[in-house]
Each structure stands twice: as C-alpha cells, then as structure tokens.
C-alpha cells in the first residue's frame, strides 16, 4: 500500500511531466520555424511586394490580403453570429422547431471540413454569382466557415449569464431588448470575444477554401473584387511548388507572429472590458 501522501506526489509529478511535454512540443515547433525562418526575415521581406512568383521581393501583398480577407469575413460573420446567438438564447421559445433547426445547422456546419466550404464557395460565389476569384468570394466563404464557431461560443457566453440578472432587470420594468443590451451582453462579451479570436485563428490559417474562392494573385489587393493571396496560401504555394523553402519558413514565422499579436490585442481588450465591468 502506497501512502496517500506519496500517491499525491507521484500524480503531481506525472501531470507536471505531461504539461512539460505539451509546452515542449509547442516550443520546439516554434523554435524550429524560427531557426529556419529568421535568416530570411528582414524589413524588406515584410514591406516589399513579391516578384517572380515569390522567389524575390517580400510578402507585403499577402500580409495585406490576409488582413483584408479576415477583416471582411469577420465584419460579415460577427454581427450575424452574435445576433443568431441572442435570438436562440433570449428570444426563441425552448420548444421552438426553428431554433432546434438553427442549432442543428450550426452544429453540423461546425464539423464540415473547410475544403467543402471552399468547393461550395467556388461553385456558388465564384461561378454562379459571378463574383470571380475575389476577396468578397473568399470572405463570404470564410464567414460561412466561422459562423458556427462565433454563434456557439456566443451562445455559451450568453447562457452563462445568471438568470437572476434578467429577472431583476425585467422586474425593474426594463424591456426585453433593454435587458439583453444592458445586463446580458456586457458580462457575456469576454466569451463572445473568445469566439471571435478562435475565428480569426481559423481564418488566418485557412488555405484550401481560400485558394478555391479568393485565388492566389500576388497583386496588391485594393477592391473587394480583386483576387488575393493570403499568407497561408503563399506558404503553401512556396513549399508545394518548390519556389523556396527558406521563404516558406519565413512566411510561417510571420503568420505565428501575426496570430500572437492578434491574441495579445484581443486579450488586452478583454482586460479593458473586465476593468469596466
């Protein structure tokens, strides 16, 4: 019989080791990308437009393409997703068939591989609606893709707001919409933002769906109808078409930096919100 105290020690050691392995994997991954990517990194790489299919120049247009596409996709998906979550949690009756259908759809959409969204976007936006390979086709496809994530996380966040807030607000004579705006959404905001961060990560990392809908033009993206190439697509093409492994790693490193910056900014806004509450 091992004494309880020793058991605790052994278990603690095992969990500590498991945590260390996770941290180790993450760090070795980032370290490897940094070692291979850093030598090719310079201000010119960030600020110059690519030339000769990415063999020369920088990746500035792909950075802009990534930001442009992600921003438009979120601009479309966030209001819709949050509104759907508010409807499902606050307005729909629990026995509503329609709410049941929306929930089922969101759940199913969340599990569909991105290439299928890409195929749909290609057939529907690019060809049927005639939008061509463009930022708008890509953003609409990405918006469809992240919509379930935004809706589900917003639903969870709204659900976790205590029922008492709503009761108290209504009992003070507030209307339903006033109650939602003033005592339900503010405490749910951190959760809603978490969903948005996850969506940004998915959008920035997506390749398959974007090649099919936004194309892979290296030109500076200006209007919504321009084709563009995101950093992830660029990375994929650099590596797959044997253009330059070194440049692929430099691009990968910048993607990681971009994600870290986005997460940091999102966390900062979360803290601001927490202070205001």
């Amino acid at each position, binding site marked *: 019989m091992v004494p309880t105290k020793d058991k605790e020690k052994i278990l603690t050691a095992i969990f500590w080791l498991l945590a260390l392995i996770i941290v180790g994997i993450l760090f070795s991954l980032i370290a490897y990308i940094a070692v291979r990517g850093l030598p090719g990194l310079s201000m010119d790489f960030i600020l110059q437009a690519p030339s000769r299919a990415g063999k020369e120049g920088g990746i500035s247009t792909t950075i802009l393409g990534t930001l442009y596409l992600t921003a438009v996709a979120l601009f479309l998906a966030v209001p819709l997703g949050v509104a759907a979550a508010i409807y499902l949690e606050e307005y729909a*009756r*629990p026995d509503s068939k329609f709410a049941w259908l929306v929930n089922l759809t969101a759940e199913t959409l969340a599990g569909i591989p991105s290439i299928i969204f890409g195929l749909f976007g290609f057939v529907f936006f690019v060809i049927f609606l005639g939008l061509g390979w463009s930022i708008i086709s890509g953003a609409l496809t990405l918006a469809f893709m992240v919509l379930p994530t935004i809706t589900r996380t917003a639903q969870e966040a709204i659900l976790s707001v205590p029922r008492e807030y709503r*009761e*108290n607000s209504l*009992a003070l*004579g507030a209307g339903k919409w*006033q109650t939602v705006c003033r005592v339900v959404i*503010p405490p749910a905001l951190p959760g809603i933002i978490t969903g948005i961060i996850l969506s940004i990560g998915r959008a920035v990392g997506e390749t398959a769906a974007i090649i099919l809908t936004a194309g892979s033009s290296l030109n500076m993206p200006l209007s919504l109808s321009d084709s563009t190439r995101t950093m992830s697509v660029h990375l994929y093409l650099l590596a797959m078409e044997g253009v330059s492994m070194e440049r692929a790693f430099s691009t990968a490193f910048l993607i990681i930096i971009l994600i870290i910056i986005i997460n940091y900014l999102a966390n900062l806004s979360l803290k601001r919100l927490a202070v205001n509450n």
Partner: protein
Amino acid sequence: MNPKIKIKTSDISVFYKDFQALHGINMDIQEHKVTALIGPSGCGKSTFLRSINRLNELIAGTVIRGQIYIDASPVYCKEMDVVALRKQVGMVFQKPSVFPMSIYENVAYGPRIHGIKNREQLDEIVENSLKAANLWGEVGERLNAPAAGLSGGQQQRLVIARVLAVEPQVILMDEPASALDPISTARLEELIGELKKNYTIVIVTHNMQQAARISDYTGFFLNGELVEFSATNELFVNPRDQRTEDYITGRFG
C-alpha cells in the same frame, strides 16, 4: 382613517402546464402595511407573489386565471402595460443579485431605462434611494466601486435601493433574508419597518419568527391554497384553522 386596499386578488389560479400551482386565491392587501406570506416549500407563495407583477409569464406554459387589481385597476388585461406595472410594483429576490457594474450604475439602472438622462437628477435619485435603503453611510464615498465587492447584506440593500429608484408603490420581496447572516437580517427587517411608511410591502418568508416580527398581516399557504389570512397577531396567537396551528407550532413544514 380607513385602511385602503392596495392589491386585491380575485380568484387567482396559476397553472404550469398540467400542474395547478394556485387554487383561486382571494386576498385583500392593505396599503402601507407589511403582508407576510408563509407556508412550506412549494406551497405556491412565490408563485402568488410573481403573479402580482406578471413575472410568471416569463415561464413558457404558464396559464393564469382570475384577476388582480392594483388601486382597483386590473393587472390582467390587454391594455395593461407590463413595463408600467413593474415600475409600480418592484421586486426583491431571494438571492441578492447586483448587476456587474458600479454601485452608482446599479441604482441608476431603473431610472435610466425609464428615460432619465440628466446627470444631476440621477445623482439625486441615487443618493435618495441609497439613503432610503440605509446604505448611503456605507457606500456614499465609493459609488463608483463595483457592486460585487459589497457584502451579502449590503448587496441586498443595494437591490432594494435599485428598486426604490424607480419609485414603486408596492415592493414584493421573495425571501429576501434567506441568504443573509443574522446581523444583516436584523438590519433588513429594520429597513422593512421604515419602508412601510411609504410603500406597500408583500414579503414571502420561510421564517415564521420573521413574519411575526415584521408583518401586520399574514397569509398561510398550503398546497396552492390560502388556508388562512388575518392580522399577524391573530394568526399566530389564535389560528382558526387546524392546519395553520399545526404549521406554526412546527408539526410539519
């Protein structure tokens, strides 16, 4: 001075789907008095309370029959504006539930949703409401602190201040002291005694001593029926119904 009837309920029955929670309650609640509702858990006293400000309607599948009159005007009719009703009839819940905002914003919440924007006017309402709830002395210096930092007893008084800020005539209290320690409870009871000068109070309580201490009238509910309703002294000293006697002497409940 003739006692004025503030709330009159006429044959109120409440159904939750197949379950009948209240069986035809008739009750006359007097103005500027404290009316206590006692009875074992699930006897319908909270349901009764929530039918006065139409909060029962929030639960899907609730059907209400009968009528309630406040100042002789019916509560259950098409013309009734629920917002106006709830402005007139405030409610304090069992668990003190402050909103995740500052002390000031909690109290200003009601006036703001009813359209008051003027800062000076809001300042005045907040100060008066906190004073009326006996909380001004403790929080007057830190109105911008988060309300969640207050103790349970202070939070419950803040909730009362928040209710007072919309200037109701009736205050419904659903076991307001059940989550409080004895000292906070004593302060709350003292406050209720002061508030009845200006408000009509209906309070649900599990605690019979509390009902006896603070109320003028007491109603005893059992299985969705109002078994007995009379002046508090009379009900506790000289109950007419055997079931009331059994309950207040602790034979069940």
